[in-house]
């Protein structure tokens, strides 16, 4: 996808490329990548800018971003804009996508930050959550794992220890199994260390303790006996790769021996930050996070019994660009990772795989048959599919009101590619697959914006209807066909037995569907 060519000849066709800039406001720095996007949807990063900024230090130690830091950030963004204008004649903020991660997300005054930036620069900063970070990171890493099959073989963990959070993504044979966000970060570690106010306490102990939960939940997700590789991302990992792997091309993954990383971490931790700044030409905030982050990586590698760490040069900006290009976002492959990840959650809660599969197949068929009527997007279809896969996981807790248990289990799960809004939509669809219709007294429902409520009732109505078609959990009806005939939704089956039980369930469970779509479901045997 991203390719650099040496020749001075432009490889792309004659029509001019589009210039897009993506900005990532992180815990230690603000970075911008400027890319030319060609008509064939390939793109090349032409400019990289960065300015270190201690947002993470402010948020993770003081709870909010200092006024002076906000102003510095504004100044940095203005300079970025100036560079965009000078180098690329880009003056419109429409060409810019800016996102902020945990350091802004967790700041009490994030609204103030976003507003100030918007007023001063015209740039609208989107705050993204861990799931979104994971999704974008995956988009950025995908070309690498597609190219390097060995790396993606068996189990690959993508790991980025940030200033505030640690993002972990598990890929099995290149498919996303799980994605997690842990509240572990170098600034939090430093904060903890400072709270102890006791010189005796070792950084290593703090890290071990803070990471114990992360280690446990990673282990839970892994399949015992399957070999695991770790691909570490982020500036600190890159720093290690640049020092330890002299010939690293910055495109493929660098392979580092864990003991060497440990030595480097020890050396870094033994040096005063000022020395790191002058010796390695890095900025102060980076120098502060370098030691703890490297140590955390070493610790995680040790806990997973790894002697090698891989390091990738991929980052959020690459993902944002891929998203900018557009086609990647809800592509089939991307969706397949979401579905795969949803099934992993299902497996965790001992879902009825066959029923889930059957309902999912019916509901997607129905969705496609009704496209004219509902005009919903591919994204909505994917969320519906996730809801269908997981609609019964609540039975893991109790059979009573299991739809409600399904909802909160889903909302509190991490499914790759879905952010909090997407997850709560999926959870609500599952919640309404049985029981009461959405009501004004249901606070979860009324809290949704009107537009989302409309989407929800349509999707929930579809799921509720098809659930009735396998209420026996026996998949008796086999393959179905859905078609529209005036006011009737015709459902045909090759099943030759009695359809009375299903018809009866359809009668009650189809009411919501009829109210929403104005269609009456009719289950019929297929003509011979």
């Amino acid at each position: 996808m991203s390719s650099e060519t040496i020749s001075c000849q432009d490889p792309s066709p004659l029509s001019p490329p589009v210039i897009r800039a993506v900005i990532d406001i992180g815990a230690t720095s603000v970075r911008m990548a400027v890319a030319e996007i060609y008509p064939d949807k390939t793109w090349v990063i032409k400019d990289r800018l960065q300015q270190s900024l201690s947002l993470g230090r402010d948020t993770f130690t003081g709870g909010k971003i200092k006024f002076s830091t906000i102003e510095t950030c504004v100044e940095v963004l203005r300079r970025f804009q100036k560079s965009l204008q000078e180098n690329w004649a880009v003056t419109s903020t429409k060409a810019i996508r800016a996102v902020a991660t945990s350091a802004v997300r967790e700041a009490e005054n994030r609204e103030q930050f976003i507003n100030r930036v918007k007023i001063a620069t015209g740039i609208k900063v989107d705050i993204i959550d861990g799931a979104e970070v994971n999704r974008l990171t995956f988009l950025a890493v995908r070309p690498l794992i597609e190219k390097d099959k060995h790396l993606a073989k068996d189990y690959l963990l993508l790991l980025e220890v940030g200033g505030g959070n640690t993002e972990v993504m598990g890929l099995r044979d290149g498919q996303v199994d799980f994605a997690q966000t842990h509240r572990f970060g170098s600034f939090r570690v430093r904060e903890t260390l400072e709270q102890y106010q006791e010189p005796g306490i070792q950084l290593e102990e703090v890290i071990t303790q803070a990471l114990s939960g992360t280690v446990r939940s990673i282990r839970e997700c892994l399949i015992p006996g399957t070999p695991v590789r770790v691909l570490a991302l982020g500036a600190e990992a890159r720093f290690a790769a640049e020092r330890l792997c002299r010939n690293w091309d910055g495109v493929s993954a660098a392979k580092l021996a864990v003991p060497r990383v440990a030595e480097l971490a020890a050396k870094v931790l033994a040096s005063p930050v000022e020395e790191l700044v002058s010796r390695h030409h890095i900025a102060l905030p980076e120098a502060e996070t370098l030691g703890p982050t490297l140590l955390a990586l070493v610790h995680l590698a040790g806990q997973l019994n790894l002697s090698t760490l891989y390091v990738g040069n991929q980052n959020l900006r690459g993902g944002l660009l891929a998203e900018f290009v557009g086609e990647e976002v809800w592509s089939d492959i991307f969706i397949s990772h979401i579905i795969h990840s949803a099934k992993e959650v299902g497996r965790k809660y001992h879902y009825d795989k066959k029923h889930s599969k059957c309902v999912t197949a019916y509901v997607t068929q129905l969705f496609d048959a009704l496209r004219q009527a509902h005009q919903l997007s591919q994204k909505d279809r994917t969320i519906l599919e996730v809801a269908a896969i997981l609609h019964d996981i609540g039975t893991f807790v109790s059979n009573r009101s299991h739809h409600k248990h399904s909802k909160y289990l889903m909302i509190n799960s991490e499914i790759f590619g879905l952010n909090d809004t997407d997850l709560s939509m999926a959870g609500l669809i599952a919640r309404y697959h049985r029981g009461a219709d959405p009501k004004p007294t249901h606070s979860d429902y009324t809290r949704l914006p009107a537009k989302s409520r409309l989407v929800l009732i349509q999707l929930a109505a579809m799921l509720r209807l098809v659930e009735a078609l396998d209420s026996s959990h026996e998949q008796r009806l086999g393959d179905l066909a859905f078609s529209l005939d005036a006011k009737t939704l015709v459902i045909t089956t090759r099943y030759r037995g009695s359809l009375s039980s299903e018809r009866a369930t359809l009668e009650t469970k189809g009411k919501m569907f009829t109210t929403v779509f104005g269609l009456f479901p009719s289950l019929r045997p297929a003509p011979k």
Partner: protein
Amino acid sequence: MKLAKKHFINREISWLDFNQRVLAEAADAGKAPLERIKFLAITGSNLDEFFMVRVGGLISLRLANKRRACPAGYTPKMQLEAIEKKNRDMVEKQYTCFHELFDKTLPDAGITRLYPRTLTDEQEIRANELFDDDVFPLLTPMLLPDPDAATLAAPDLRNLRLYVAVRMREDSTREERLAVIPVQETVDSFFQLPAEKGKTGLLFCTDLIQAKIRRWFPREDILETTCFRITRNADFAIQEEEAPDLISGMEDVLAARTSGACIRMEINASASPAMETLLMSRLGNRHTQLFRIDGVIDLKTLMPLAFIDGFDHLKSAPWAPQPSPRVDPATPVFDQLREKDILLYHPYDAYTPVVRFVREAAVDPNVLAIKQVLYRTSADSSIVASLKEAAINGKSVTVLVELKARFDEARNISWAKELERMGVQVIYGVRKLKTHAKICLIIRREPRGIMRYMHFGTGNYNEATARLYGDISYMTCRRNLGNDASLFFNAICGYSQPVGMEKLLMAPFSLRDHLLTLIDGETQRASHGLKAAINAKMNALVDPILIAKLCEASCAGVKIDLNVRGICCLKPGVKKVSENIRVVSIVDRYLEHARIFHFYRDGDEQVFISSADWMPRNLDRRVELLIPVEDPAARQQLIDILNLHMKDTVKGWELTASGRYRPPTDSKQKKKRGSQEQLYLNAVKAVEDTAKRRPTALEPHRPV
């Protein structure tokens, strides 16, 4: 590899040796007389700067009680002593040369020095006119009071300005007084007086002033007159932390330079001991070195003589810069660069394409932005004019003007302000670092997207020095270099912190490490029995770490050819230390100024050009660039240049294991050519060959 003190050469001594080599050109009887005058003037101006900065710096170190020895083992005190001895020797040689020229060579060739007492009537009349019109009205004497008894404040005497000192007794009080007449730079240092046809007479202004001293002091008893000049310590760096902004900080430095302690006093050899004592007691201090000069003080004032009208037979035949056949004068430079990279070696290749590059950008409607670093440039520079024009044409023009360029500060401040008035975004350098890189980036909108065109150089964007200094220009639109050029400007403009670059190496970040890696690479190859070679050309080699690396490589069997024009602290050819290293210094008509580095890499050759010498200040305290030249033709051009210079037996001085330079072996041989002459002839031949290849059909100009 750890080197002993004895394996290093002290840098000050090495510099003085360089000036001796320049002096040898002035002393070369086989050379055109006016060319010799030029070299003599250069030794004078070189020595002035050396005093102000290097001697000044060492004196500051002594005053601060710093005793750290240089790698060669000399403490500041030892260095000052060694320098003084060598200096006195050099001054003696300079004036031996001066007398040889003015007493014999020039008179024989029809240029005679005249003295006021021996003028012919016709000459006297002209001299009087000149004095009345161009000298007397411009000069104002000042009293230099005795500091002990002074009721008047002593005037501040200017650094390096010539003064005529007058000892006199006042008519009424019979009191002895000392006055000085500053000889303003606006007054010509010598006048040409009428002589026989084909000849000319030279009357030095200071001689005329002394002869006519009564015009200023009609009533006093003149006891004695003499010329003198003081040199002040100019080793002041800007205190960036304390200055409210760079311009005012810079102005402080300029002010300090006019009031630094007097470290050298030159007076006429004929001055009496009384005069010497008076001047030294009023202006000198215990660190002032006194030089009694038998001849004209301030040799650089002789420079205009080298260019006087007529007398072309006394000048070297001009080597006119040639229009490089690699550049088509009729096709826009951008179009040509899309086809191929262009490499030029000035002044053999004319500087015109570089000037065109910026000029075409200024008027090209598709050019969005021009970004350039200017270190030293000429006041009437057409590049600066193009930048102004571009700004007026609405392009985004960013210029980094290095205010900290020593001795050019005042000039740079003035035209930087003018650029600002024209709408150019001017950046006054980077905090704590001098920006020495030579780069110009042009951003152009094209049908296939944004294209970036670059000029990288080893010399300043200065059309005047481009005719006198040997420098490389490399123009390209390679994408990866373009990306890196953008990153570079983003960094120096403060838009972004420096980020890793793909091809370019930047000091003070990656440049030094990369050089070390490249040298290490050759060492490794040599120790594995592979052919390994380094061929590098630079102005100065001082850095002890790089020197140690080079010696290590030499010990491993790497063949190292170094073409170092000026200071070289490495002692080559020492058994078991540097026996595979050769060092050659070329001193000829043009100032060798290019930095080219070639690493053999077992046949996968890499060649770089750079703005940086191998000195700690360049690698650690300046913003410099190391640029890989990957175009095969351009790379070969550079390798050929390196080889040609290294083989120069006519103008190349070889540094020996003793630390002394061996004069060129073939300097007296008429048939052999120096590398500079060869390069000039090659350039001429290339133009002729291209002309021959041109189609014979005539192209008539037709009415449009």
